[in-house]
């Protein structure tokens, strides 16, 4: 189990350092599969767990990456990820985020023994990485990926804390996330056709900045 956690963390670091979209999508799908396996390992071979794990693998490991890949192919986006922060700097920040995650786990572990602390660390790390990607990557598609990573992290945290909501709820959550990312995928198409780029950095028509200062009320 700790191995899976480590692999998840590593995949995140990889994510941060990679400059290729295709690779990143593959990494996300890898995470999805890992999470499915993790669910099995953590929960045992109960039927409900199996349903959950399988649907997680199908949705996160196969369906979503497929959708994103299609979006990537059909848009005229460049295949490179365009970051605000360079890749090496991203990896370094990733390490810092890892440290932060560890610090948080240490503090919370004092409260109650956690089912799997390493797991929680990597869960936090995934959430942070997701946020980091959302903040620093320009393309809409990378942002979607960031969101996916973050969601994976949340899911992972749920697993690592051993909290079991009922299966229906878990399924509902999965479905919601799926629809969310599905919607994002659809919108990427629209963005592409509308703006001829999916660069959300240029996506700032709606703002409240007033350029001239000291304008007095008439």
């Amino acid at each position, binding site marked *: 189990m700790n191995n899976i956690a480590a692999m998840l963390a590593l995949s995140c670091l990889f994510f941060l350092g990679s400059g290729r979209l295709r690779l990143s999508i593959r990494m996300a799908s890898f995470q999805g599969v890992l999470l499915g396996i993790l669910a099995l390992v953590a929960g045992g071979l109960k039927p409900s767990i199996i349903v959950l794990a399988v649907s997680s693998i199908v949705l996160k490991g196969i369906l979503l990456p497929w959708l994103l890949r299609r979006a990537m192919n059909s848009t005229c986006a460049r295949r490179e990820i365009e970051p605000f922060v360079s890749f090496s700097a991203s990896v370094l920040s990733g390490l810092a985020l890892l440290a932060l995650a560890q610090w948080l786990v240490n503090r919370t572990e004092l409260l109650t023994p956690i089912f799997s602390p390493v797991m929680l660390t990597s869960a936090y790390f995934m959430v942070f990485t997701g946020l980091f990607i959302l903040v620093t990557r320009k393309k809409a598609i990378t942002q979607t990926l960031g969101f996916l990573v973050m969601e994976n992290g949340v899911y992972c945290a749920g697993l690592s804390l051993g909290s079991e909501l009922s299966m229906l709820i878990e399924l509902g959550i999965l479905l919601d996330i799926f629809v969310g990312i599905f919607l994002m995928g659809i*919108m990427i198409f629209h963005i592409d056709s509308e703006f001829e780029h999916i660069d959300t950095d240029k*996506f700032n028509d709606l703002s*409240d900045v007033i350029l001239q200062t000291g304008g007095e009320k008439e």
Partner: protein
Amino acid sequence: MNILYLLPGLPFVFGIASFLVSAEATRRLLLIISAVIHLILTLSLFMPEVVVEPDSWLIADALSRLFLLCVSLLFMALAFYHQFSSEQTPGNANAMPQKMQFFRQPEKVFAASLQFFLAAMSLAVLSRHFGLQWIGIEATTLASTPLIYYKRSRHSLEAAWKYLVICSVGISLALLGLFFLAMAMPAGHHDFSSESLSFYATYLNPQWLKIAFLFILVGYGTKMGLAPMHTWLPDAHGEAPALVSALLSGALLNCAFLGILRVFQVIQAAGLTIFADEIFIVAGLLSMATASLFIFHQSDYKRMLAYSSVEHMGILILGMGIGGLAIFAAMLHVVCHSVVKAGLFLCSGNILKAFGSRKCDVATDLKRRLPVNGALWVTGFLAITGAPPFATFLSEFLLLKAALDSNKMLVAFLYVLLLSAVFVGMLGIVIKMYSAPSQQSELDKIAFKEEIFTAVPAAFLFAIALLLTFYAPDSFMAVLKDATTSLGGKTL
């Protein structure tokens, strides 16, 4: 089978039906039918004879009933508004990518999404289980994104994208919070609801509870539009069609607020009220300050309304933080704000339709060009800024009194200051729009005609806000008071 399941269930079914129906008129009729049934069901919950036992999923306690009433009332008004108004069909609907066939019929998607939206909000409001509530709230995001994107313009796309991404991120943080909340439960406890957690509050782990609360506050706070997580709100409210903005502002924000309240109930039962109060007060004042900052010099009247929503969410949270009578005030304010803000958005829709512009500099001289909507616009402005005799005044004034009751002088002072700042900021815009422009404009030559029927729903909503000051039905008061006590507040 519980009656409560009908509330989210029926609109869901109607939504699917809307997809299947091809005639626009039928879809509108479906919308009204669904709204009427929903309202009847909701009102029946207010009858003292109707007792609905909660099961493990859904509940109809005072809080849910209060928030459900907002949703249902608003939806009713909107359905009628939709019946009478004809939003322009998006011009470039045909330019959609070939692969996404169903998106090429925006009317269909719109009608269906509206129904789904209602279903999702009902679910979010009625859920007893935290997880189910989360699903409901996330579903509202998903159902409303197509609504925001209804116009198919670049700006609406941008707004919808931002809305979707920011809210999804926020909500996943809330999910993380929910996991932490589950961590706080003693082992073997399975009933993951506010009610049961409050009951066993002493067995909960306070540290986990705190962390969970922070995550949930940030998560749902994003959805609710608390500063500085409010950033999606002006864009989405500005770009969406009027009735969607009305729903977003009047009903959706409340759902997220309810999400926070449910956790707050647990926090209170666990004796961590002070911990939460500090955060609430800071968040409330910060939201109000942010809103007032952006309302000044605002050039877009729909964005102005959006920022006003941020302000009012701030007031609600501030009320929770002050506690005591302020909680009663906040509960009253939920209802008042919902109806008034929705009415204002509907009114703004009429103005937008007449002028074709959201700029305050263009949409001027409402006094003569659109006398009915102009009068409504000013009325709504007064109502939303808490001018007597609207019920918003009562709630804001009671909140102030509560702040002074609990000796929070500085908070009270800042609160009044910010309220006044927002008022002054909005006033400038409203005067500009209501009165004649200083220079002759080309619009002078156009004859404006207004459809009275589209103004009726807004007038109806304002009338509710006015009526509440002078008369509140007993069952409503009872629910209001129960809701207040369930949050540990004092009633009048």
